[in-house]
């Protein structure tokens, strides 16, 4: 995946010239009507995905999972067992695809990299004082460097919501660009923590801000806060990456994270990807699920599709 940031078109380059231009640009984005947005999201959620299209959706969703463990109690051995699951989610059924990446804290990157060597599965590390983002810039950049040096191929940073909500967009922009540099070519996902932002207009502004600063992916949430990912928020972010592609020719990705636990939920997200951004986004290169429990439900539903009956939670590995 290319992490090169091509030069922005002139109209967008102007937007990032200084704090005032950035503010002007973000404030000038079209508004979001909450009632209409939520109604559209609810309507698309009634799509009925059955049979072959459901099987295809389940495999696609498995390929898009960032298998995540972000606990204080994480140990190298737990990370290794998660890595094994990432390689072969359902060892008894060899046809099951591998997940996209494993997502861990920076100090767990090394065991994850070791356990996944030789596979194409990415190692994503959260960084920048995850989940709150409340630390000095030096500490945040040092944490990014730690993760990247340990071999993380993807970095999930959090934005400084305090600065964003106070309207100090320039500061947020600058921090993302510095993190981008510190990534040294690793893929950058920017977590907006939409549950802390002031509504859908802010989600749109933060999404544009992150993309202008060089994000490869925009991600809804840390998963440590409720509300985490929702369908309407994901709709807004999908609209932004679609519009970004029209303006710049570059396709960026979206990652909803937190609260997506069932196959039914996952399929609703895939329908949104399909109909809001377009079929080109139905790939792990442009859409991911940040989740831990989702994978097992996908595996169980996959068995239902193939074997015609439900086998129960004891027949898939808990981790």
């Amino acid at each position, binding site marked *: 995946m290319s992490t090169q940031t091509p030069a922005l078109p002139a109209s967008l380059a102007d937007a990032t010239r200084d704090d005032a231009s950035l503010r002007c640009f973000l404030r000038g984005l*079209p*508004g*979001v*009507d909450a*009632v*209409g*947005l939520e109604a*559209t999201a609810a*309507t698309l959620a*009634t*799509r*009925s*995905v*059955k*049979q*072959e*299209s*459901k099987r*295809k*959706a389940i495999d*696609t969703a498995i390929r898009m999972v960032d298998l995540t463990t972000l606990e204080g109690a994480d140990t190298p051995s737990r990370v290794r067992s998660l890595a094994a699951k990432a390689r072969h989610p359902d060892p008894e059924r060899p046809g099951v695809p591998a997940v996209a990446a494993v997502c861990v804290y920076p100090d767990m990157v090394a065991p994850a990299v070791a356990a996944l060597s030789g596979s194409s599965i990415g190692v994503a590390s959260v960084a920048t004082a995850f989940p709150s983002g409340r630390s000095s810039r030096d500490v945040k950049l040092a944490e990014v460097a730690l993760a990247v040096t340990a071999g993380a191929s993807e970095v999930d940073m959090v934005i400084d919501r305090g600065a964003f909500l106070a309207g100090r967009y320039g500061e947020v922009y600058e921090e993302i660009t510095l993190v981008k540099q510190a990534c040294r070519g690793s893929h950058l996902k920017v977590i907006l923590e939409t549950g802390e932002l002031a509504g859908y207009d802010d989600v749109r502004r933060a999404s544009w801000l992150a993309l202008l600063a060089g994000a490869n992916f925009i991600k809804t949430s840390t998963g440590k806060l409720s509300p985490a990912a929702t369908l309407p928020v994901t709709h807004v972010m999908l*609209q932004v990456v679609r519009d970004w592609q029209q303006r710049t020719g570059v396709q960026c990705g979206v990652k909803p994270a937190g609260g997506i636990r069932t196959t039914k939920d996952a399929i609703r997200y*895939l329908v949104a990807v*399909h*109909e809001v951004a377009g*079929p080109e986004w*139905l*790939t792990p290169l442009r859409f991911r699920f940040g989740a831990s429990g989702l994978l097992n439900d996908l595996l169980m539903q996959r068995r239902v599709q193939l074997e015609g009956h439900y086998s129960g939670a004891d027949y898939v590995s808990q981790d």
Partner: protein
Amino acid sequence: MDWSYDPAPESREIANLKPSYQLFVDGRFTDGGSEPTKSVDPATEEVLAEVGTASESDVDTAVQAARRAYDRVWSRMPGAERAKYLFRIARIVQQRARELAVLESLDNGKPIRESRDVDVPAAAAQLFHHAGWADKLGYAGHGPDPRPLGVAGAVIGWNFPLLTAAAKIGPALACGNTVVLKPAETTPLTALVLAEICQQAQLPPGVVNVLPGGGGVGAALVAHPGVDKVAFTGCTEVGKQIQRTLAGTGRRLTLELGGKGANIAFDDAPIDQAVEGIVNGAFVNQGRARCDRLLVQESIADELLDRLRARAAALRVGDPLDRNTDVGAINSRDRLERITQLADAGDAEGAQRWTSPCPLPQRGFFFAPTVFTDVSPAMRIAREEIFGPVLAVLTFRTPEEAVAKANNTPYGLSAGIWTEKGSRSLWVAQRLRAGVVWANTYNRFDPTAPFGGYQESGLGREGGREGLAAYLAVDDDGGRR
């Protein structure tokens, strides 16, 4: 990735389709005196059922039955008792919602998602709302003890068959009137199931009567001297005939007629939701929501139209019973021909046509979503009601110009305003001559909000407190009493 949804059709069985349907007169289902007609599934052109039709003497029998029921039972019954019947009918409509939704989609061609999520719940809501009024009419602002009118003759259209039937029966019964209802010739089935529901609710015989048939039955009903009030939903031309028929008779009339609604999109519109709303207004329900004009501010026209075409191209046209269908079938061959003819007129008069590349079914009456740009106000597509999934786009530069263009039509049913600026919404809404003005939404119906039109879109209001006036002997809309 190439990912298409497999068909997810609702089962036809749910509709409990019967081989033949009869008239409902005086609490009983009976054969009509005229030749039965066949109701056709517009998605397959197959015959759904044979439907009995009324003769002139059936009209007379039904009106007499309604008169008897009015004199002897319904007008004397306390409001709280009438309410019980209406609540019961509303609950049965909810209980039989799936059956009604599938039947509506079969008979009318609208997608099941719409009949399931909009038509049937809205019909139940109409009945519940008016049931609540039945014992509170003294507080409706029409005097301390407003009286009913008598027998109401209702003639309705094919675009929202069950919903319109409920919107006529609800207020009529709540106010103490009895009803003779004539559903549209092409969509009689859900009205006849509603009759069955009235029977199931043990509504006294004659309070509701349903007479399927063509225009002749409607004309006979409207002209019948025993009818005290006429409520009509349909085209402007027939509305005018009815007005002529009733002129000088002192009988009351409400008309809900055609429309040439406009959505007005300003440059500060919430653009993605505006596109969604315009697409819904123009293409959903196959364009029967009567919003076939878009007025877009020149400064955002290109951007908005690009998004609009992209969104419209993603709409799924096809089997109305498939739960993933966005745009269903056109209700009849005649209707399809008229749409085709008007669209051709758009080409001939120099507008630019864009047609959705979506695949269309081989059989049935379908028309792909179509957008005309470079439309000038003089063209037929900008003036005549299209009633199909065709949108005519005009541009404007100032709010004054938008209002002038939106109002430049003999109709005035509905309009939509898209802007994030509240003061602009209000400024425009005050100047639009339209019965309903939606702000940042389109096509939301609520039984508490009065609905109706200006000029050739009709007279009188339906729904809400204001709508009750049409079924009461009060003097606020030109009535005799």
